């Protein structure tokens, strides 16, 4: 046991420094020995956990996550919330259950397990076993390091939610007894110190403190093992092997094992793998020299653990990984670790797919996606980029995914679509040029849909899985894109990189990110944040009316009661209306533009006349509508609001323009109807092959 030396002073320093850190504050170290029995799907483990009290108050009890108890039975909070389903995968309720049992926990030789109890701080579920509370014989003093010897046994669940097995494929995530986070006063803007140790929820991920890991894994020799760490030792005996991995400065440790893995190795070399046009763009936008941007880059070993039937994907994943390393290094900061491991999950183990851990993540390959035209869909590359970049927004800026899931998923969705669209041009594109971008795909899921929650909420408190998904992924991603368009490229990316560098190796909150976005001083951004992160704001621009009529001068009685341009004699036939086609002008036009929803946004309004002339006016969008009356020599043919589509949150972009009867251009409707009718005929004529 390490005694407290610095007390409150150390605690204060650890709480919330007002400057960027060069390395994380390490509060937990783990030395783990684990034996995996792949036939029985069981785990026997021992760990030495060193935990330092970061606060200025003594801590009388410890709290640990036993995540695999979410799979213990159908009464766990995770199972109740998810119904045994996650992202389309279903729990095997016949024999796929799993658990973690702590069999011993000693501190200074005193057994603590007997006094331990389960608590459910979030929902009070008496049957949930994912948070273990361990009262201590004496409090851990401020700055003191407690050294705990823990033994546990676990049953691996059949995978449907991140961790588990299928056949002899294993994904070990959140697999060992892991201490919760004791947040000192000031950390993440807390006003008092206390545990932050939530239950495992269907719609939540994780939160932990940094530390160093040394993990020894014993299992049959035939298994290929990939992990968050670097292999430092291998011992073999009696058909089994013990692999020892080490990794410093991470806040979780995951590993995978499968005898079928094909290991593909490559190296990210900044001298070759940073695209010249991208560094030039970053240099110009961020106002930094290329040499400055290159500083901190280093070679990174890439290890891809590939399923043998997915060989067609090896270069696709590696190239996407290299691009992500280059892009994040330029626009956030260079990746600090020496290696990254990519786990390609088998197609019957999709429950493990698309999950991030530090320095290791799982990606997606489907053999069918290697054939035309599905190979034009860069979903595999997108998942690789997405999961790797989690290593920044969940990993290196260690946000609390229980309480602020958008900080990881939302920022990550934004960076994902920027990266995917820049490298691949489109998310899906098939000849003759039919497709869409990743940004548009996310925008469609966010801006065009209704919702019942603001972005900011605890992950388990959203209205449901749909609301959690929307408000954690596409809605914040698209709203950040909206902020980017409001701030402009330079201001936005400087603020964005500033946020990343300031909160590197730290635990930012929502307000830390939002402060960075408010910092350039655009009041529209501040208002937008209020409406979206803290409200359910939306916006819909529309051209409500657009008409144009010939201006034939004054008609009616003048002030002297004289008839002008008409004959009031009831016996005479009324004058014929002049032929509009022969009218040489002038023309009177009326345009009404409206803004629905409670987000105030400015927008351009463009009026186009038949002679090709256009008039552009900026509308501040503050009121609900605006009218334009125009006298022109040529009739109005079109009125459009936001023609450059800068309001990406616009709920219905289709009502943004109106054409008057004077428009004589070709019909898009006729084209659309013709293609639709042909599609119906194609489908029907296919029935000739049956009948």
């Amino acid at each position: 046991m390490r005694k407290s030396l610095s007390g409150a002073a150390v605690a204060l320093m650890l709480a919330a420094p007002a400057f960027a850190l060069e390395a994380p504050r390490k509060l937990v170290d783990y030395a783990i020995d684990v034996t995996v029995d792949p036939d029985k799907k069981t785990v026997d483990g021992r760990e030495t956990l060193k935990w330092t009290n970061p606060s200025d108050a003594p801590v009388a009890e410890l709290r640990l996550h036993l995540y695999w108890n979410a799979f213990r039975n159908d009464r766990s909070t995770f199972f109740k919330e998810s119904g045994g389903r996650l992202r389309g995968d279903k729990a095997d309720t016949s024999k796929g259950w799993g658990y973690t049992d702590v069999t011993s926990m000693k501190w200074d030789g005193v057994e603590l397990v007997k006094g331990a109890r389960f608590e459910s701080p979030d929902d009070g579920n008496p049957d949930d076993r994912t948070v273990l509370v361990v009262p201590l014989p004496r409090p851990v003093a401020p700055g003191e390091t407690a050294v705990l010897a823990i033994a546990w046994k676990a049953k691996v669940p059949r995978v449907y939610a991140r961790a588990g097995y299928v056949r002899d494929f294993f994904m070990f995530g959140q697999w060992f007894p892991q201490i919760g986070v004791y947040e000192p006063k000031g950390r993440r803007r807390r006003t008092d110190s206390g545990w932050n140790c939530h239950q495992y929820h269907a719609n939540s991920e994780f939160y932990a403190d940094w530390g160093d890991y040394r993990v020894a894994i014993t299992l049959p020799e035939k298994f290929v093992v990939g992990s968050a760490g670097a292999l430092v030792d291998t011992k073999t005996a009696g058909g089994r092997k013990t692999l020892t991995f080490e990794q410093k400065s991470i806040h979780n440790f995951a590993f995978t094992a499968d005898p079928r893995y094909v290991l593909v190795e490559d190296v990210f070399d900044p001298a070759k793998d940073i695209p010249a046009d991208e560094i030039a763009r970053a240099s110009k936008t961020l106002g930094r020299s290329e040499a400055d941007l290159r500083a901190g880059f280093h070679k990174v070993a890439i290890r891809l653990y590939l399923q043998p039937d997915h060989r067609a994907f090896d270069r696709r994943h590696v190239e996407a990984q290299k691009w992500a390393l280059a892009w994040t290094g330029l626009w956030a900061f260079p990746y600090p670790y020496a290696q990254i491991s990519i786990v390609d999950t088998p197609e019957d183990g999709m429950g493990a797919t698309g999950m991030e851990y530090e320095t290791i993540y799982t990606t997606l390959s489907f053999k069918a996606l290697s054939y035309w035209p599905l190979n034009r869909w860069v979903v595999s590359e997108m998942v690789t980029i997405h999961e790797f970049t989690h290593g920044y927004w969940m990993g290196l800026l260690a946000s609390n995914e229980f309480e602020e899931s958008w900080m990881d998923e939302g920022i990550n969705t934004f960076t994902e679509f920027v990266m995917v669209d820049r490298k691949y041009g489109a998310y899906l594109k098939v000849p003759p040029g039919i497709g869409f971008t990743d940004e548009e795909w996310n925008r469609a899921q966010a801006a065009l849909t209704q919702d019942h929650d603001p972005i900011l909420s605890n992950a388990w408190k959203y209205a449901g899985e749909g609301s959690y998904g929307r408000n954690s992924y596409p809605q914040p991603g698209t709203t950040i894109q909206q902020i980017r368009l409001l701030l402009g490229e330079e201001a936005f990316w400087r603020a964005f990189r500033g946020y990343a560098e300031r909160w590197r190796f730290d635990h930012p909150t929502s307000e830390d990110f939002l402060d960075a976005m408010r910092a350039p001083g655009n009041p529209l951004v501040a208002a937008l944040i209020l409406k979206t992160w803290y409200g359910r704001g939306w916006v819909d621009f529309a051209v409500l009316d657009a008409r144009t009529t010939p201006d034939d001068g004054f008609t009616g009685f003048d002030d002297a009661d004289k008839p002008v341009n008409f004959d009031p004699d009831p016996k005479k036939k009324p004058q014929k209306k002049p032929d509009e086609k022969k009218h040489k002008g002038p023309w009177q036009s009326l345009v009404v533009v409206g803004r629905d929803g409670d987000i105030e946004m400015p927008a351009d309004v463009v009026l186009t006349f038949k002679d090709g002339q256009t008039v552009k006016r900026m509308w501040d969008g503050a009121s609900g509508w605006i009218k334009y009356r125009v006298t022109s020599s040529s009739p109005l043919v079109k009125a459009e609001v936001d023609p450059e589509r800068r309001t990406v949150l616009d709920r219905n972009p289709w009502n943004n323009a109106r054409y008057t009867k004077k428009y004589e251009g070709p019909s898009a409707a006729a084209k659309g109807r013709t293609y639709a009718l042909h599609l119906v005929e194609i489908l029907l004529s296919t029935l000739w092959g049956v009948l």
Partner: protein
Amino acid sequence: MSTLSTGLGAALRHRRLAAVLWLSLLASALVAWYPIKALFAAFDEGAFREALVKGWDSWGILSFLVVERSQIGLVLAAFLGSAVAFVLLQVFLTGGVLRALIANRPRPVFRLVVAESAALFKANLWATARFALSSLFWLGLLVVLPCAGLRKLATHAPPHGGASTVLFWWALLGGLFVFFNTGLRFDLARIALARDDARNARGAYRIAKQRLSGRRVSGLRVILFWLVVFLGVQALFTSAGLHMNPRTNGAVAGLFLFRQIGFFLLAMARVGFFASLLAWEERRRPAYSVMGSASGGTTWNVSESIWARAPASAFPETGSSVTTNGSALLSS
């Protein structure tokens, strides 16, 4: 003359028959016209009009799919109506088409096809029901059950291993083989009805079985040949139609006409297929010989009972057809 060249010749000669089939396709598609018209009205009223005239607008289309999803639902429902209309029309028309081909009458055909179709409709409907049931039965027995068994055996096997590869190919090729077989018998049953070889679907299926006995492979070859022709025409015109990307109202009309030519060619392929199958069936009718005698009489050497009656409306007594055992020889 081979059955395939007979079919190709008939496809070119019986253009009016193809026109009847093409019209049935267009008419069925037009069942969905009003919802389609309403759905795409937004294209001329909204912000993406000019972009869509120029070509593909990804955000325009993606947002259209979301914003207009309820209207799209209506179009899908109308499409189902189209499909039902099309299926019934084809069940109805096939009998008439076959009789027109048997009569080898390139024109006039419309009234003939409708009259003969009406005469055969009930029997053809039963034959179609039998085809649907037999397809389900054989697909279940020979494809679904073995695949389910293999899948169960391979539960613990890794994806894309030997078992799953066998499963995939068996499901695909086995499924197609079974489907083509049941389809071939269905078509031959309809031919038997059109030739009046049988009075009802049951008898027609029995005769179809006799025709197929020992000659399945060559029959399947006819199906495969016309399937390739059909898919080739479909792929060519669909691809060309997509690449045309018309930007004026005139060009849109041109695209419409161009695609209708493609569908007309598909209808010709269908006529060609039936003509090939009729020729194939003609050659496999029961053994008999037609022998001339000095007295001009005919001696029948029949291995099975053949009762044949030329349908009155299909075979006017013009003397232009050579009648053997009750049916007209194609191209004779």
